[in-house]
Structures are given as C-alpha cells and as structure tokens.
C-alpha cells in the first residue's frame, strides 16, 4: 500500500515514509499503554516497542492486551497478536473495560481526511448520500479519539487529506477549536500531534489549531503549504526532525521485510 519509494522527497538514505514512521514511533513513551490501529500506526508502535519503548503495552481492538507481534499484523485480528499477548479479551471488554475506562495513554490513529482542528474523516468523500468515495467507516477510531488520554495521528500530508472542511466528521479532535472539545465532555485530551511525511504539527494551546512546528530533513515550509488544504499556520522557529538512526532504520526495514514475507 505505501508509496514510500515513489514519493521519496528525502535524502537518498531513507524515504519520507520511513522518516514519518520513525518520528511517530518516537512519540510513544516506554511503559505507556497504547491503543493501535492497523497500518502506519501499528508500524510506528511496533517500531517503538522494538527500539526505545520495549515496555510499552500494545492494545488492539480485537481484544489482544499486551500484544507483541514479531511481524506487522495485516489485519487487526491476526494470530500473531494473540500469540504473545498478556491477555486476550472480548471486543466489548477491550472497548468498555480498557478504552472507555481511561486505561489507554496513547491512541495511534491514521486518517483519510483531517482538518485544522484534528477532526478526522474515515467515512466518505463527498456527500454522504451520493458519496464519491465510500471509505471503510468508523471502526474503533471515534472512541479512541474520545477516550485515549492523548492521540497521535499519522498520515501523509496532501491537499486531499489535509482539507479545509471534512466531508464527514467520523472522529472528534478539537471540534470547532478552543474549548469546544471540552464541552463535548470527552475524558481524553484529544490529538496532541500529527506526524506527516513532511513534518510535525502540534495544536495551538489556545485555539487548538494545528501548527507546523517541525520539518523532516529535506522538507520545506513551501512543500507543507502546498500539501495543506487550509492556510497552514507555521511556528516562529520551526525545528528540524532528527533523522532516523541506523538502528531505527534497520529495525523498521527488518519488520517490514518480515511482514512482506508473511503476505506471500
């Protein structure tokens, strides 16, 4: 699925997708409880577990608690998730007793569309009743966005993904911004960072509008503006992301190689 090689904008030694995954993995603190979606989130979480966060506790919506996959799961319920898990519980239990209960420190989410306040669309592109593109739908995302203490969003920065207005609000970030999320009464504090293939966005403390705070090596503010469907706010001093370490790249590529083998 990933178009890493084709949209490589970084220097030769690693791809922009690799930089994105590595940057996302660095957001996961060791020992934290992490609710993981399939795809890029799972890739980043397992990279973290294999590098700086060996003690992180991965929860998948299929009910696997403390999952320790040795290849990246292709589906949310792969056997490899149960194999080494500390416990396996029912789907109602993982959503009620774990996510809703506030036991999840970090939720890792992907998205089809995201807006300036970190609201997410994974339902439809275009009008709901005559949709141009019917997406898979909500899945576990709305409640991860609602109840995880904080949320990390990972997606490639493109105009059709970073939109002025979502076709559909599937999962709530900061709503209309400001205090509007608080007023909805959710227990989680909302998305704290968006990691893209270009850089890192964090919400303004007041307005909650996502602002470009860091660029990955080789990426420019201009690229970020072009890739964003709204007038992107940029921090006064934008930092540069530490490039992937050899260890990070080695582990990530090994993970993906083993995963590709498993696909066959």
């Amino acid at each position: 699925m990933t178009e890493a090689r084709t949209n490589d904008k970084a220097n030769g030694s690693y791809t922009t997708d690799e930089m994105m995954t590595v940057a996302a993995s660095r957001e996961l603190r060791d020992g934290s409880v992490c609710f993981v979606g399939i795809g890029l989130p799972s890739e980043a979480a397992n990279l973290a577990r294999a590098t700086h966060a060996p003690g992180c506790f991965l929860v998948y919506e299929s009910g696997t608690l403390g999952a320790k996959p040795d290849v990246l799961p292709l589906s949310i319920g792969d056997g490899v998730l149960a194999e080494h898990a500390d416990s396996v519980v029912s789907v109602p239990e993982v959503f009620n007793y774990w996510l809703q209960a506030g036991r999840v420190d970090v939720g890792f989410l992907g998205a089809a569309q995201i807006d300036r306040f970190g609201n997410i669309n994974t339902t439809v592109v275009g009008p709901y009743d005559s949709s141009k593109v019917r997406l898979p739908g909500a899945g576990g995302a709305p409640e991860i966005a609602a109840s995880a203490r904080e949320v990390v969003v990972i997606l490639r920065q493109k105009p059709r993904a970073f939109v002025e207005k979502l076709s559909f609000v599937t999962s709530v970030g900061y709503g209309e911004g400001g205090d509007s999320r608080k007023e909805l009464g959710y227990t989680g504090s909302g998305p704290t960072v968006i990691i893209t293939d270009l850089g890192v966005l964090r919400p303004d403390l007041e307005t909650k509008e996502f602002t470009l705070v860091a660029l990955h090596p080789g990426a420019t503010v201009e690229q970020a503006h072009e890739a964003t469907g709204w007038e992107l706010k940029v921090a006064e001093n934008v930092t540069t992301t530490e490039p992937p370490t050899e260890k990070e790249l080695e582990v990530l590529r090994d993970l993906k190689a083993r995963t590709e083998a498993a696909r066959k």
Partner: protein
Amino acid sequence: MNKITILREAVAELVHDGDSVALEGFTHLIPSVAAHEIIRQKRRDLTLIRMTPDLIYDQLIGMGCAKKLIFSWGGNPGVGSLNRFRDAVEHGWPEPLEIEEHSHAGMANRYVAGASNLPFAVLRGYVGTDLPKVTNTIAPITCPFTGERLMAVPALNPDVAIIHAQQADRRGNVAIWGITGIQKEAALSAKKVIVTVEEVVEEFEPRPFQIVLPSVAVDAISVEPGGAHPSYADGYYDRDNAFYSAWDPIGRDREKFRDWMERHVLGTEDFSAYMESIRKEEVVR
C-alpha cells in the same frame, strides 16, 4: 447429540429471505463456508449485520442477497476497499444497499444489550461526530444519578447468528480460543444460532483464552473443516493473506466477480469443492 447437521440443511431451515443475519468473526474464524451456502441457496433481502464486513459480505452483497447492511468498518483488511460493497453504495449495483453505520464500540455494545435482553446500551461516544446525523439508532440519554449526558444505542437481536469455531464436543458444546472477538455476544443476542466447526472432539482440553458456548445456546452445528478460509483458525491453519490481495482485482470488476462467483461458489456443491476449484486457479497458495 442431535444438533450436528449438514450445513445445507441448517441454512435451508434457519435462514429465510428477509431475515437479519449476523455472520460474525473478527478477522479470526470468519464463517465463509456458511456465507457461500447462503449465496448458493439464493437468499434475498437479508439485513446483514457485522462489525467488520469483509470478503464474504462483499460476495453476499455483490450476489444480491442483501437489502441492508448494519456495520462499523467495511474493508479488505490490509488490502483496501470492498469493491462490491462500494459499488452497491455508490451505484446501487446489483441493487441499492441501505446502510446503518456505527462505531465498533457502538456495535459491540448493541450486541451486549441484545445478549442481555435489554432494549439499549449506553456508551461514551458519537458526541460531536456526524454519525448521529446519518444513523438514527443513536440517541442521547441522561444518567439518573449524576445528570451526565451519554449516548444510547438499541440492542441488536439478529434472527440468525452464524459463527465458525474450532471445536464442538459430543454434547454439542462449542469451544473457541485465541481471538474470540464478538462471537459470544453475537450468538447469545440472536434468535437462532448456527455454528460451523473444524472438528468434533470427545472432550475439550484447556486452551489459551478459550471460551465455551454451551449446547443449549446453539441450534445447529456443522462440521466444515477449513470453513473459515481465507481467514484463519488458531490451532488449525493460518490466514491466507495472498487470497485477500487476490480478491481485490476480482472484486473490482462486475463481470469478473460474477464469473468468479458462478464458477467457484454457485458452480460447486460445498466448501471442499470450492477450495478445490479455486486451488486449480492458484488463487490460493
């Protein structure tokens, strides 16, 4: 134990046109064999229920068995879209498909309410999303003690629930281990329950995270080894990841899809003949 029966007869007797049917499985133990039997028996106007509709729902929808889908995530896991599902929603082919969509937490709790004989379940969610605007089975509810406002969803009580399990014992109890997903609640929320199993054993042995569904909660059991393909059965066989990828081009094209289904599903007697048939085309490793 008189519950063990031939799947063809179980489907003929328990699944009727217009029924609401939940074929559940959370990527593990997906009841593919029963879905194919429903397609062979040309059931119509079904309300299909499933948290994670995947290939078998793509097939049921593409073959015109369904008039409505109640779900929370519809895709080809690790591959992409369900093209027959999209074609039905986006272009009404082969016929319009009414959809009722929820979040996973909403669907899971709807099954829990159904299994508990309660009319509704309560959860923290939906607030501020567009889901309540398009789904009328979401309503606010207030805590009578704290005054806090939460969301309620109505119970799911399918006419028939169908699951695939690893084993049944002689008394008709059913054992499932590994990832058991929403299968217990789906079965206990339904008016009738059909279970296909890998094998029948004398006695169950303890397995990690095993649940046992007592025979009194099951209406029909059919022995269908391999019946969860292309998903997996922990302890029996692995997920056929290649098939999920292979399905994408087949599902994309109406003609190709119909032709494939006629050749491999309508054109075969049962699941072993089906597997034989697709193996010939090397769709399967």
